[in-house]
């Protein structure tokens, strides 16, 4: 009986799969998770934990954005909206119950997922009916509209002031579990680890999605839609699937964000600044490289947290000209510059450039 014949592609995949635990990237991933878990024990400063938690949350949100923008090739400004949907679900459910329980959180998460799916399907269907550029502009207008709605529909969203709420049980900020091995156990710590676990799970989910057959079809649709259709793939189904998946993950990330801050308002979770941040993160990280989301989220969040202080300190060294003082206040300006410079000189982003270098070195080695 002849041995089963594998195609070259299948052979390569088998080889990759077999060696997946010994590759350097896997070890880096393990090391990363260990570091993240160790941070609250090693550097218990609130600011550090805050930055790291936000990086994890945004890494997930940006990775899910990469599915839509980088892998499916759809320019959409609506992603921030889904983030806000998740955040507000958690916030409002917990707000309306004086003593929220764990199941409320699950309820809210479920609600967020259902809502996101419905809206995502609408968005996906709409994207198929209009040209890409119109779709992009439409999502920009709609995202802005939802932002304004967040302000104005005070009956639902409590308007500008936002929603402040309590978390149940050991997640509550008031919970105190005493000391354990020299660390103060409190609600914040528990929420941190909850976010760590869920983020890792969601992120791995995104990676799995992208590496799966579905992900491969998406790449082929992005690169050559007509050919994919000719090969028999129902592009519509795949597009809807990818948009729904990406949006639901984003709303879950938003839910985590709400858990962390115990507070949401239209500007932080629904606004254009959030959307622009995510866009910059995905570009800096690299489009079409899910892991780029981590890099981008880390870079932007760290910059956002420490740049204002850095600027003020720097300006303190210079003569007290008012113009310079004002410039230091306007660190957003440097973000804008970053946008322009990254697009012009670094369009593949960090991960993209690294992958290119690795690929080029591999190709050179093969030729030699």
């Amino acid at each position, binding site marked *: 009986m002849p041995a089963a014949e594998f195609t070259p592609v299948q052979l390569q995949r088998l080889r990759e799969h077999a060696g997946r635990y010994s590759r350097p990237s896997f070890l880096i991933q393990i090391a990363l998770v260990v570091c993240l878990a160790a941070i609250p024990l090693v550097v218990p400063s609130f600011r550090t934990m805050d930055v790291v938690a936000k990086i994890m949350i945004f890494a997930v949100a940006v990775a899910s954005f990469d599915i839509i923008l980088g892998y499916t090739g759809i320019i959409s400004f609506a992603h921030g909206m889904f983030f806000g949907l998740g955040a507000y679900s958690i916030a409002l459910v917990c707000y309306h119950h004086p003593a929220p329980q764990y199941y409320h959180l699950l309820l809210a998460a479920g609600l967020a997922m259902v809502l996101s799916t419905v809206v995502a399907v609408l968005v996906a269907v709409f994207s198929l009916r209009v040209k890409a550029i119109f779709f992009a502009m439409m999502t920009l207008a709609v995202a802005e509209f939802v932002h304004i709605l967040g302000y104005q529909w005070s009956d639902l969203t409590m308007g500008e002031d936002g929603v402040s709420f309590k978390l149940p049980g050991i997640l509550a900020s008031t919970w105190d579990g005493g000391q354990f091995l020299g660390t103060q156990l409190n609600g914040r710590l528990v929420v941190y680890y909850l976010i760590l676990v869920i983020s890792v799970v969601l992120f791995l989910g995104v990676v799995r999605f992208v590496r799966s057959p579905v992900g491969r079809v998406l790449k082929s649709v992005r690169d050559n839609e007509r050919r994919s259709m000719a090969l028999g793939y129902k592009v519509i189904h795949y597009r809807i699937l990818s948009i729904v998946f990406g949006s639901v993950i984003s709303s879950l990330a938003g839910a985590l964000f709400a858990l962390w801050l115990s507070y949401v308002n239209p500007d932080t979770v629904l606004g254009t600044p959030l959307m622009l941040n995510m866009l910059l993160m995905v570009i800096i990280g690299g489009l079409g490289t899910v892991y780029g989301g981590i890099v981008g989220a880390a870079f932007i969040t760290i910059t956002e947290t420490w740049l204002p202080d850095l600027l003020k300190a720097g300006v303190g060294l210079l003569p007290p000209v008012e113009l310079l003082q004002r410039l230091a206040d306007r660190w957003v300006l440097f973000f804008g510059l970053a*946008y*322009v410079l990254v697009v012009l000189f670094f369009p593949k982003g960090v991960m993209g450039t690294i992958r290119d270098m690795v690929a080029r070195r591999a190709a050179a080695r093969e030729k030699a």
Partner: protein
Amino acid sequence: MASQATTATLDATGGRDVREIVFWVCAGGIWLLPLMAIDPTTYLVLTVAGFAMGMLLFLSAAGLTIIFGLMDVLNLAHGAFFAWGAYVGFSILNALSGLGWVESATMGQSIVSVLLAMAVALVVGGGLGLILERVIIKQVYGDHLKQILITMGASMVMAEIIKVLWGPNNEVMLVPLAFQGSYDVADVVINKFRVAAIVAGLLVYGGVMLVMLKTKLGIIIRAGVENREVVQTLGYNINRIFTGVFIAGAALAGMGGAMWGMFREQITPAMGDENLIFALIVVIIGGMGSVTGSFLGACMVGLAFNYVAFLMPKLALGVNILIMAIILLIRPWGLLGREQ
């Protein structure tokens, strides 16, 4: 079955034209609907307000639509030109106020003040357009995603520089005396500046259409919107024309901003983003590359906004997004865009 028969009958009797006529009748008649909920006097006041707002939106949208139609460039920094025009106009009027030309101005002084503010805003807008086109836009022709990103970045930088130069707070815009207040025409109160805005808008529309229809440049631009390559092969340096068009669009947006400031009597650093959303909606409704389309679209947006703002204030912006969505679904090329 019935719809098949209808379509067949329609097609036989020059159906496409009938559908066009039906569309235009609906598009026109819909503006009389609010009369069911608003009394005629208020309706007239709102209509004038709507047209005035429309004219000012047209100034911004006209540039955006030609830039996209001709150059295939999506310029999200267009709102920044608008904001800069407003702030520059604000400074001019403040300076003139120091000369006593604004608060207690004569008719002549008022007109000159307004024209001066508009003219400087025009020049500054154009200058910024030149810089942006040469430095940034040139690098990203052909790539929509890069254009979106880079113009967003540029927009952020420009807005932040406004905050650096003028401060981050809202400012009150001084309006020359002769343009303050309103006319009372048979119980209908019409704000004076709104009339000025409508006049200005009509003049600009007339001027732009004159250039587009009667001059060689207009022919070149209209041809380029349809087919860039052919225009190049006929010996025209399309890049220089692009730059010129971009500058003109930015200049108009700047002028629109200065007038908007006087219209609202207030300027904010965020007014650029607000205007961009409106301009995008107008361009989509009107059709990419069509000046008359954006004229009509701007009127529609202005009217819709004002009627709905009166009846249900929270939905004013939402109504315009709804119109945009409907147009995208039933007539994606817009009112007067090219049928693809």
